[in-house]
């Protein structure tokens, strides 16, 4: 009963909000081309699908590729940095600068050097890179000190400690990094597309959104926004699914969550 209710309530709340939106637009008399109602947005989604869906594929593709590259790159760098305190110290200033700078601002710079597609990809990559690196570093260090001692007594090599102990210990951390990085790289891809403004076959969803705004096509702007939200949900769902699958073994034994 409470289970059913906890499922119905959020759906109901969303439905009410949509209803309020529709009625408010209707009653206020604001022109449809300025503030469309939910049905207009739905219509725009359907009629503009040939334009918007390929754009969605481009943006999602860029985001996922950037995320994958960031995971590989940051994971590898973390494994190198964790080998030596000195190396890590040397890397610190870069990490701090890149952490506190809104890195998406590099997009215009990248556009000077590369084509727009590469620039957007690189922006999304850089933005996802650091949270993943930070969580991976924390994860590699989170290994139980008692287990480190035991492995030392066994005469384990540095590589054996990394593979047997540190990498598995870092897994939950890496997955958290992936979830954070996923959300951020989507944002970065959107900002990158705004800055790049590339038209044609490579046009992403954010570019289509900007284009629709120039043309005062508000329903299409809304439709693009809805699709961006869908992209975000899909990304979150994907990273959560990966986490769930990867951590099944950890949760076996049913320790309460």
């Amino acid at each position: 009963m409470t289970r059913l209710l906890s499922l119905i309530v959020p759906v109901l709340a969303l439905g009410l909000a949509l209803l309020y939106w529709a009625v408010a637009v209707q009653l206020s008399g604001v022109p449809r081309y300025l503030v469309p109602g939910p049905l207009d947005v739905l219509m725009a989604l359907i009629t503009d699908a040939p334009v918007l869906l390929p754009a969605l594929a481009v943006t999602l593709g860029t985001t996922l590729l950037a995320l994958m590259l960031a995971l590989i790159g940051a994971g590898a760098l973390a494994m190198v940095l964790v080998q030596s305190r000195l190396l890590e110290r040397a890397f610190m200033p870069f990490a701090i600068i890149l952490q506190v700078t809104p890195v998406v601002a590099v997009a215009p710079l990248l556009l000077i050097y590369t084509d727009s597609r590469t620039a957007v990809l690189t922006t999304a990559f850089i933005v996802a890179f650091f949270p993943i690196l930070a969580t991976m570093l924390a994860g590699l260090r989170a290994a139980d000190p008692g287990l480190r001692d035991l492995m030392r007594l066994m005469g384990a090599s540095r590589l054996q400690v990394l593979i047997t102990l540190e990498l598995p210990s870092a897994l939950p951390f890496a997955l958290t990094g992936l979830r954070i990085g996923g959300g951020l790289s989507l944002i970065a891809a959107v900002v990158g597309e705004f800055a790049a403004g590339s038209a044609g076959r490579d046009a992403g969803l954010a570019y289509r959104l900007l284009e629709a705004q120039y043309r005062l096509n508000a329903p299409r702007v809304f439709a693009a926004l809805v699709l961006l939200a869908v992209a975000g949900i899909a990304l979150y769902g994907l990273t959560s699914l990966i986490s769930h699958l990867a951590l099944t073994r950890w949760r076996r034994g049913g320790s309460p969550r």
Partner: protein
Amino acid sequence: MVTQTPELPFTGLTLSGVAARYANGTEALRDLDLTVMPGERLVVVGPSGAGKSTLLRLMAGLMAPTSGTIRWGNATAPRPGSIGVVFQDPTLLPWRSALGNVALPLRVRGVPQRAAREAAYEGLRAMGIADFAHAVPAELSGGMRMRVALARALITGPDLLLFDEPFAALDEITRFRLNDDLLALAATARVSLVFVTHSIFESAYLASRVLVLSPRPGRIVDGLEFPPQDPAGPSFRTAEAFRLRTAAISTALTRAMGEGP
């Protein structure tokens, strides 16, 4: 890979004039002279902060003494696999089965997967938990986890087993059972035990020798030698000899508390 020194029979572990001071200035141990003889069961008792855990870390070769020397047999460093350690926490890899955890020390030495797992299975059987070989630590009770940790410590055939209050977190019935198993094991495996505990009863039951440490910095202030249990086994717990032992240890411990730095 690790280059192995030829295996010599274990001739004991010797600490001479050993002191340990941490980087923050804390003096944990002072002027320690001690030999752990082959086959003996040495129990170390002392107040909290007397440096008992530090002593075990020194014996394991996990930290170097600030001054003094430690010799493992004739060597200046322990041979990999010659020392087994069991901490208060079982410290198992949570993502590996009991079998995988016990096989780990062999896998690290390059023993093939199959042989390592077979040996690990035998180890688990000896501990009476072969039925749980494929369970991960989260699926095991505290006592079972401790048995897995014991099997892992034993699998390389160590000369010396070090215990840092291993059973402190367990209930008394489980602890009694593990104490009995440990004695049986020490009798058959020809291994020296060094056992740190807070429990006077545990020390009276396990020890062939008890060392009493003073409050920090820890020094040896008393040593008590005990003959074999009579009668041997669980019934020793209710014997008059056992009561006398606990009284002797208790008195020594009380005296040690008075020995300030």
